């Protein structure tokens, strides 16, 4: 990292709004999140709309011959990425509850997510 960056800590929020497998955004978004861990920034992940499906338990991708990347969400803790927010309204609309998700998350309302989003320096949406 360059000299000018030392000491800079920014708030990064990655917003996941897409379902997994139908498109690559969920997988390649996760790759950015993992890389961001190396930069010692204040990183959080938000799952809203179809993005909440990324965290669904019990994904088995053998039948479509695509790599199952859902175990990676469990590995985020090891990268010190521990702020995972899920929008309550999106869960409700899909008939899902926290118990359906494969990692512990903080369930927030739309308004609470909006407030958190406002505080960020950098927001990247996948």
């Amino acid at each position, binding site marked *: 990292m360059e000299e000018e960056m030392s000491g800079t800590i920014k708030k990064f929020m990655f917003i996941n709004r897409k379902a997994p*497998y*139908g*498109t*690559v955004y969920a997988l390649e978004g996760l790759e950015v999140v993992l890389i961001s861990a190396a930069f010692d920034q204040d990183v959080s992940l938000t799952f809203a709309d179809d993005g909440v499906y990324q965290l669904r338990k019990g994904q088995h991708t053998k039948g*479509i*011959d*695509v*790599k199952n990347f859902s175990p990676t969400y469990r590995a985020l803790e090891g990268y010190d990425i521990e702020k995972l927010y899920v929008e309550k309204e999106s869960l409700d609309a899909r008939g899902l509850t926290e118990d359906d998700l494969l990692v512990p998350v903080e369930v927030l309302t739309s308004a609470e997510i909006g407030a958190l989003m406002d505080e960020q320096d950098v927001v990247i949406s996948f």
Partner: protein
Amino acid sequence: MKFAILVNEGPYNHQASDSAYQFAKAAIDKGHRVSRIFFYHDGVNNATRLTEPPQDDRHIVNRWTKLAEEQSVDLVVCVAAALRRGLVEENLAPGFRISGLGQLVEAGIQSDRLVTFGD
């Protein structure tokens, strides 16, 4: 039965080319003929010989090439769509050929079913 397939999205970014491949394979396994697969829009990117996906991932382009070689499926890439996107003879994978849009219409006329996979 004689099937033709239209693939409208590139590899990896959308599931379209995966679904199209699984459909083609299942059709052949059931004794049908897949006469032509036409690649249009970003679908032309299925035909580049330069992809190098991670080792533990499927190789979408090679999978198409193998299908063409083993099952004599005619893999046609639309020339106009390909030129817009940088797909030319220079980076064309084996088993594919570049031709005109007429090949899509012809496939619709000559096959019993034309099934489209896209975004």
